[in-house]
């Protein structure tokens, strides 16, 4: 847990984390708008979860990004890289200025996260379906070494159609990896449409339960509910926990919310200006 937020009242913590999430959303849109490419939908969808993890819950030290005892975060849905980069930069892993380089030739901020290029990225991702296995592997390594770090992993609901997720779910429960906490960013959208129309993943709760996981359900935009669920997951013994987070894709921008089209499309200058205004920010278009 971050020292700075440890003693905040619930009300203050809520206000603080909501502000942080808003900041992440603004960064995401600015980065993607500037690059004229990227994935706003899944980045904004996950902003509150990432904010709770990176500005409050996780044990981390940006000055020592390879600390073997740090908590790990696996962005299994690697296309949400902007929200991770924004959280890392806001934490001081690298200068905020670097965010402007997203997807550019002279930048380390690849379209999908590269652990060897970006300080704070715990594993490379982008090919969907692989993050839960990686998180399990990290937890096993911690168990062998007698370290008590935890591993958090963020999976998409469309991504949950990958068979490998369920291979890893079986494996994690079998090995009682109670230091693994998975989030499913449950926005019911993927590229081609609604998850429920493409290939239904429901009933997710029953599926994870049947696979031997402790299952929690939260509003994925309620920072306090997310934090409470994380606390409960931290206390679980003998079982990994999955938090099914009900989310809205592209949350926070009225004209982008809940539309499959905004999965992987950059806002143009006008759209960006309007979006940033909604996220109560002075627009810096073209700066």
């Amino acid at each position, binding site marked *: 847990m971050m020292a700075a937020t440890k003693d905040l009242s619930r009300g203050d913590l809520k206000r603080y984390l909501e502000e942080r999430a808003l900041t992440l959303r603004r960064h995401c849109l600015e980065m993607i708008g500037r690059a004229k490419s990227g994935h706003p939908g899944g980045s904004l969808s996950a902003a509150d979860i990432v904010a709770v993890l990176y500005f409050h819950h996780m044990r981390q030290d940006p000055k020592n990004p390879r600390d073997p005892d740090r908590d790990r975060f696996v962005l299994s849905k690697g296309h949400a890289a902007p929200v991770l980069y924004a959280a890392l930069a806001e934490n001081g892993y690298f200068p905020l200025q670097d965010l402007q380089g997203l997807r550019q030739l002279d930048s380390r901020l690849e379209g999908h996260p590269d652990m060897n290029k970006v300080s704070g990225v715990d594993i490379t991702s982008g090919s969907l379906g692989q993050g839960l296995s990686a998180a399990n*592997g990290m937890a096993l*390594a911690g168990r062998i*070494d007698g370290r008590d770090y935890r591993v958090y992993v963020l999976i998409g609901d469309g991504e949950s159609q990958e068979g490998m997720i369920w291979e*890893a779910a079986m494996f994690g429960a079998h090995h009682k990896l109670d230091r693994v906490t998975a989030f499913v960013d449950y926005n019911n959208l993927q590229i081609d449409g609604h998850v429920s129309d493409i290939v239904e993943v429901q009933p997710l709760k029953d599926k994870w339960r049947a696979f031997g996981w402790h299952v929690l359900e939260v509003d994925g935009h309620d920072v306090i509910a997310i934090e409470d669920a994380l606390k409960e997951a931290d206390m679980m013994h003998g079982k990994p926990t999955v938090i099914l987070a009900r989310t809205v894709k592209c949350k926070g921008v009225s004209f982008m919310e809940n539309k499959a089209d905004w999965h992987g499309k950059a806002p143009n200058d006008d759209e960006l200006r309007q979006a940033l205004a909604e996220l109560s920010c002075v627009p810096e278009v073209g700066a």
Partner: protein
Amino acid sequence: MKATREAIPAVLIELAQRGADIVALDADLAKSTGLDKFAALYPDRFFDCGVAEQNMIGTANGLAAAGKTAFVGGFTVFTVGRAWDQLRNVTCYANLNVKICSSHAGISVGEDGATHQTFEDIALLRMLPTMKILVPADYWQAAEMLRAAAALEGPVFIRIGRPKVPFVYDESYRFELGQAEVLRPGEDVTLVACGITVKMALDAAEALAEDGISAEVINAATIKPLDEDTIIASAAKTGHVVTAEEHSVIGGLGGAVAEVLGENLPTPLRRVGLADRYGKSAPYEELFAFFGITADEIAAAAREML
């Protein structure tokens, strides 16, 4: 005679005894890879992932990202084939310490047939940046390669086989990465082999000598990074090259040698190997005869050129 796969448990146990920070994973084939013996001694460092090769590589990736050197078993056709994306997009891209010591590569798998044999594994892995590819000719070379893999940074593939194969080396053998070994010097033709075909090439050179043809035999045990200098120098001397492998003639050793010579020293070349086709079921010695991967075929290819 000893199978290259017998080196897997022997060396991993030796490494663990020496305190190396290794783990091993398998996909319900630990009895074939011998990793069951490692598991018996180091149960906390072995993970049987069940019949789930993608998860095996994915889990190995996480273990490696957290500091472990992860050896992965399974059958090569599935470990490399089914989990290729996991190898491409994470293991190799992130240069992780995942060492593939799966078994049953090549067509020397024999009776299990085409679904369980490999003729494409070298090709699949050769174009992945950061991957190193080692093909042992016998047990002793396999053992040395496993030790080398543990010491190397990043992903390594050791192409290990099922059957017992004759010794080419002895216990004193020391492997050096990227060093092709001239096992027999010659003047008229160069025979470049790897793995099980090294012994065939040596036998072919013997047969050619009886006809007064002097063949140089090279064990190109490191397919990647390939020892281009040794191959070019030999081709410059002999002017004729035959490659031999239990792999497709496309994309494997023959393909690699053709690329090197084509760019540096165009030289008449014959590639002995699987001619763009699947394997089949049969005792493996019969398969080699059926597909024309034998000492006789290697010698015939050499004679044809001279």
